[in-house]
């Protein structure tokens, strides 16, 4: 139990999340972290996997739901399951591979064997158990609700949570935009992943994913590098009076946040023309233009990121062409995995370029952000300085608008995304309040 929930009741959480600031303890307190793993990661939909990672019958992946080790499987009939990777006998993980195909999993400790649906099918030397031992009582623990939205597999431990579609809410049409960039929505998440670990709280990554204020500063090295050959190209617009430009940030509800860079572009081929240069850019562009003529601009745009940041609370960030997953490791340690994606229905060269365009931000952009996250975590250790501000745009007349669905829109540098998602955080953290 969190000290805040038990000692102070619901008013204490409200003291920590104010309308324009959050308390440092949300980033440094181990008890709050433990409560988040139970309440935030235990009571809303958590992204688990993409179906293309287990497209074959009997495919599996291991991962985490909060800190809980889990096993996501597709059974012989094609149904998806999410199971606790924890033997019901003496707790050892039953599967230690990252991915593969298996009809069953035998615990390496004492040999209990489970089908990929979770059922216990075998116990060595069963004569050693009494007549009241029933195998059906000892199947692997299950994530009770698992649903897929167009390939994105989510699970929740909360039987009472709304449907996945309802949870996605205003994020759903934006996710559709991202999926529908691929012909027939054929997105493939098996092109390797950048797994980046930083010494900071998981929310620093979520805060940043909807932050249009930082690029002109945190990404100066990338912008300078891109200008080496004369043109800064991608993201330069964040440095040019961004609040007066066409970009915007939104709070979508249910914790989801969004940055739209698409209004910087008009014509087919604009994404491509504005893309930072990549290995093989000119040779493969020439090849695609020679072979595909009038269709080349559309194809080349598909080699470039989606120009949106769509952040689905609490652990899924759809940025560029990557599917990023936030995995909290400890209160001050996080793994951010950037799964690269390929798409079907395009010439091979488009996917080759797509690989190269998904390499430069993890190499030259994200490390500077993560250095800033780590230095923020260091700064958060000052007990006398209690607050993290999220007040940009707050209380400024005529700066935000709220539509009929409750979606809040403002200039791209506003911190309305944080003000919004911390309300959802608060709702989940209060679930154990009396």
């Amino acid at each position, binding site marked *: 139990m969190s000290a805040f929930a038990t000692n102070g009741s619901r008013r204490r959480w409200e003291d920590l999340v104010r309308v324009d600031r959050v308390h440092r303890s949300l980033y440094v307190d181990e008890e709050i972290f433990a409560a988040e793993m139970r309440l935030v990661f235990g009571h809303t939909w958590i992204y688990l996997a993409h179906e293309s990672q287990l497209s074959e019958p009997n495919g599996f992946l291991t991962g985490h739901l909060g800190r809980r080790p889990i096993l996501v499987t597709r059974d012989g009939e094609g149904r998806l399951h999410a199971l606790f990777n924890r033997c019901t006998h003496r707790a050892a993980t039953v599967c230690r591979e990252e991915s593969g195909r298996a009809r069953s999993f035998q615990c390496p400790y004492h040999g209990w064997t489970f089908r990929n649906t979770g059922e216990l099918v075998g116990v060595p030397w069963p004569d050693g158990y009494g007549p009241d031992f029933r195998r059906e009582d000892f199947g692997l623990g299950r994530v009770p609700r698992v649903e897929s939205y167009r390939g994105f597999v989510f699970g929740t431990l909360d039987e009472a949570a709304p449907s996945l579609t309802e949870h996605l809410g205003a994020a759903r049409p934006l996710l559709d935009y991202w999926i529908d960039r691929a012909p027939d929505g054929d997105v493939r998440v098996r092109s390797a992943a950048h797994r980046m670990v930083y010494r900071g709280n998981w929310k620093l990554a979520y805060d940043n994913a909807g932050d249009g204020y930082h690029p002109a500063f945190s990404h100066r*090295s990338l912008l300078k590098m891109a200008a080496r050959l004369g043109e800064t190209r991608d993201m330069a617009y964040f440095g040019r009076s961004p609040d007066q430009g066409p970009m915007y940030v939104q709070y979508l509800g249910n914790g989801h946040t969004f940055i739209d860079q698409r209004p910087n572009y008009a014509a087919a081929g604009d994404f491509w023309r504005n893309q930072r240069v990549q290995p093989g850019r000119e040779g493969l562009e020439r090849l695609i233009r020679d072979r595909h003529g009038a269709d080349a601009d559309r194809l080349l745009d598909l080699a470039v990121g989606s120009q949106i940041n769509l952040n689905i609370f609490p652990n899924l960030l759809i940025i560029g062409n990557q599917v990023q997953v936030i995995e909290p490791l400890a209160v001050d340690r996080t793994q951010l995995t950037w799964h690269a994606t390929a798409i079907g229905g395009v010439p091979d060269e488009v996917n080759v370029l797509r690989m190269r365009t998904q390499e430069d931000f993890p190499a030259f952009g994200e490390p500077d952000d993560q250095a800033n996250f780590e*230095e923020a975590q260091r700064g958060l250790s000052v007990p006398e300085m209690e607050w993290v501000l999220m007040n940009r745009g707050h209380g400024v007349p005529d700066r935000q608008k709220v539509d009929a669905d409750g979606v809040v829109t403002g200039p791209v540098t506003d911190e309305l995304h944080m003000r919004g998602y911390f309300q959802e955080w608060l709702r989940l953290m209060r679930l154990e309040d009396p």
Partner: protein
Amino acid sequence: MTQAEHTDTAAWSYHVDPAYYRELAAIAGEWSDAWPVADAELLAETQALLHREARLLDEARFNEWLELYTPTCLYWVPITPGGGDPEREVSHAFDDRRRLTDRVYWLRTGVAFCQIPQSRTRRLITNVEVIDEPAENRRRVRSNFHIQEFRAGQHKSYVGWYGHVLVREQQGWRIQLKQVNLIDSEHGHENLTLVF
């Protein structure tokens, strides 16, 4: 633009085409072949180049380091162990001459916050093997490395093996390919911004 300008591979990348990837796949597929034992002189000459490269990197003399590489070079740090398929998978680094020039430029911008303070490194290179292929005008080299890094109060170590392809140019041997194979390449890494 004239064709002559397009041949400056620090600015243009026409040459990283399907044939380039095919050639890379052929080389990357042969690193585990059995090689004859190299004679002492060949080994010493090869080691001298590896040691010079190591010293330039450990002393952060990146512009000089860049000059060890050919115009059509590749500095490749795969994520998938063994290399995988770079046409279908992303890498930690897949740097042609232009990207490698970018990388050095980026390190020297003074605003790459992940390199402020800068990584201090020392690397040990051992188990060097070399095969001389005069008909191809090249030498292939494989070696083990252990890099110790200190930055911002943290010590980290990186272990793996290098595959180098050297080609003879007028000025001497230069690096056509450096494939850096970390033993934990596909796992989580903190601030993976040092040059291997």
